[in-house]
């Protein structure tokens, strides 16, 4: 009993140290990585340990995909250092003060910054089952309480107090995301490259159609961003090696799609090399139709362009590739295969600031032409600058050509692009 009380006090003290009081009185964890563990004496009597672990990993990952916290299963640290413990019990259980009530009614409960208990008298099932009570849905709900969310009476919210049988593919909706981001902030951070990947397909009538998807790359993983829904694809990020065959598995510098009446070629750049990507077959060319083998040196494929580069993009108006490096930008003529006369130039001259002292200056992380917004964006750190397009200049003729509008936070334009813990990249 003494040892148990000592553990409790240490645990309580540890817990107090982990919490921070927000402005509105809400409380939240004050660290970025939370450790969780399944209680050894509290396994479900109906699901295998692996099934339980899989469900909890997925539940934590679903929250991690929309907020800047990461979750890691930790089975080695002292129990007092574990932030969230999960277990099953019946009636009086696990030293808990709140007894469960048997089959029906209450399914589970949780404490803010604390533990989660599931009623083992309930018929919890894994996501693969259509019957029973979705352990995943209940776990996601209870984790919401641990993070500081209360019950919300709103259709579609995961924080509704009543359990609603899981429709296929439930996810955290916009409001739930904003509720937790109100406590923990939005996900931010630089990107390696951002681009729209275009490919041609035949529709059901045999007509050639052009489709695109938007991708954000960071380190060794990437997200597909669904512009119409203002979020990333459910389940992202994915490792680069999984989705993009034949290119480096991390730290891509740039993606360039050269698209003219006579050329249609996509390239990935990293370090001193570049790869020609076969969009039709969704893999990098080892040898393309012109007999060129890849990877190739940038200096060979684009003479006059230094390497490594910071980023690059293809401008369909001028039909130049703009390569960014440091404070300078190089324009490369894809038809003449050479650097355009009078380049390199300073970025601040080619893309002048619209507002004083509001310019990235150099060392751009990513240059992204968005077909959704019909605009070019320059990213640096957590912010972006939009390049004034024709529509902007029609509305405001005083804007300079290629002027950079004042910076904004990336997370305010593209939402919920969040890392997950590396242990959760593969479930």
């Amino acid at each position, binding site marked *: 009993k003494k040892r148990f009380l000592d553990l409790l006090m240490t645990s309580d003290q540890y817990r107090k140290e982990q919490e921070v009081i927000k402005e509105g009185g809400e409380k939240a964890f004050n660290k970025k990585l939370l450790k969780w563990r399944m209680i050894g004496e509290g396994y479900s009597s109906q699901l295998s340990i692996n099934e339980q672990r899989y469900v909890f990993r997925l539940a934590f990952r679903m929250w991690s995909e929309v907020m800047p916290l990461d979750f890691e299963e930790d089975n080695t640290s002292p129990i007092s250092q574990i932030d969230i413990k999960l277990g099953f019990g019946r009636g009086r259980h696990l030293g808990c003060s709140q007894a469960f009530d048997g089959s029906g009614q*209450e399914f589970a409960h949780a404490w803010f910054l604390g533990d989660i208990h599931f009623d083992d008298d309930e018929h919890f099932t894994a996501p693969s089952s259509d019957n029973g009570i979705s352990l995943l849905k209940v776990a996601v*709900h209870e984790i919401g309480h641990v993070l500081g969310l209360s019950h*919300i*009476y709103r259709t579609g919210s995961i924080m509704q107090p009543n359990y609603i049988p899981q429709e296929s593919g439930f996810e955290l909706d916009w409001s739930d995301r904003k509720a937790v981001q109100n406590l923990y902030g939005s996900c931010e951070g630089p990107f390696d490259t951002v681009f729209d990947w275009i490919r041609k397909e035949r529709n059901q009538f045999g007509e050639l159609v052009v489709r695109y998807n938007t991708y954000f790359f960071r380190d060794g993983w990437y997200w597909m961003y*669904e512009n119409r829904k203002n979020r990333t694809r*459910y389940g992202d990020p994915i490792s680069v090696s999984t989705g993009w065959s034949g290119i480096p598995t991390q730290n891509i510098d740039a993606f360039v799609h050269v698209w003219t009446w006579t050329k249609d070629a996509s390239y990935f750049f990293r370090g001193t090399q570049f790869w020609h990507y076969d969009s039709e077959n969704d893999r990098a060319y080892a040898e393309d139709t012109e007999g060129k083998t890849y990877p190739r040196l940038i200096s060979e494929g684009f003479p006059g362009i230094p390497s490594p580069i910071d980023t690059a993009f293809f401008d369909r108006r001028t039909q130049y590739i703009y390569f960014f490096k440091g404070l300078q930008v190089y324009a490369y003529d894809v038809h003449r295969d050479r650097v355009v006369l009078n380049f390199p130039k300073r970025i601040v001259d080619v893309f002048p600031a619209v507002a004083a002292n509001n310019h990235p200056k150099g060392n751009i992380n990513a240059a992204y032409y968005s077909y*959704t917004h019909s605009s070019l964006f320059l990213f640096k750190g957590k912010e972006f600058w939009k390049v004034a397009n024709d529509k902007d200049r029609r509305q405001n003729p005083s804007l300079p050509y290629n002027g950079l509008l004042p910076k904004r936070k990336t997370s305010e334009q593209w939402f919920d692009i969040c890392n997950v813990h590396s242990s959760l990249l593969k479930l």
Partner: protein
Amino acid sequence: EKLFHTRDQSDVQSSSLQQAELVTDLISAQQYLVKYGWTEPVAWDLSSTRDNEPLKDFTLMQEGITDSRLDEPPKSPSLINALKRFQKLNNLPTTGRLDDATINAMNKPRCGVPDNQITKTNPEKQETEKLSENKTRPLNNSSSDPPKIR
């Protein structure tokens, strides 16, 4: 009636599991409302490591309930108000009476965390939210493939 049962008749045998008690009358309804913070906020976080404290407001439980039959409306103003708050958030007619619809709502499977809590540092109650359905969000037009399932 099913045409076939399992060979070992396990599907017709009574479960050895304890069944949760349902809300059936005014007393059990009031227990529900007290437990989940509808009469007054519950200090949930404070109870996480302590033994169950007996319900302080047992008098509240008796107050205004001369008869636990459903057809007798509750007389306690606090209970009536709690019922109305519960009914409102559950999109039920706010009658303040324990009708069938309210009982059904109370008997729905749910989370054990109270709907209205007192937090340790913020003595003001942390109220369950009812958010408006229409949240402002930016509009975008794009052309992209339909999302794949996770």
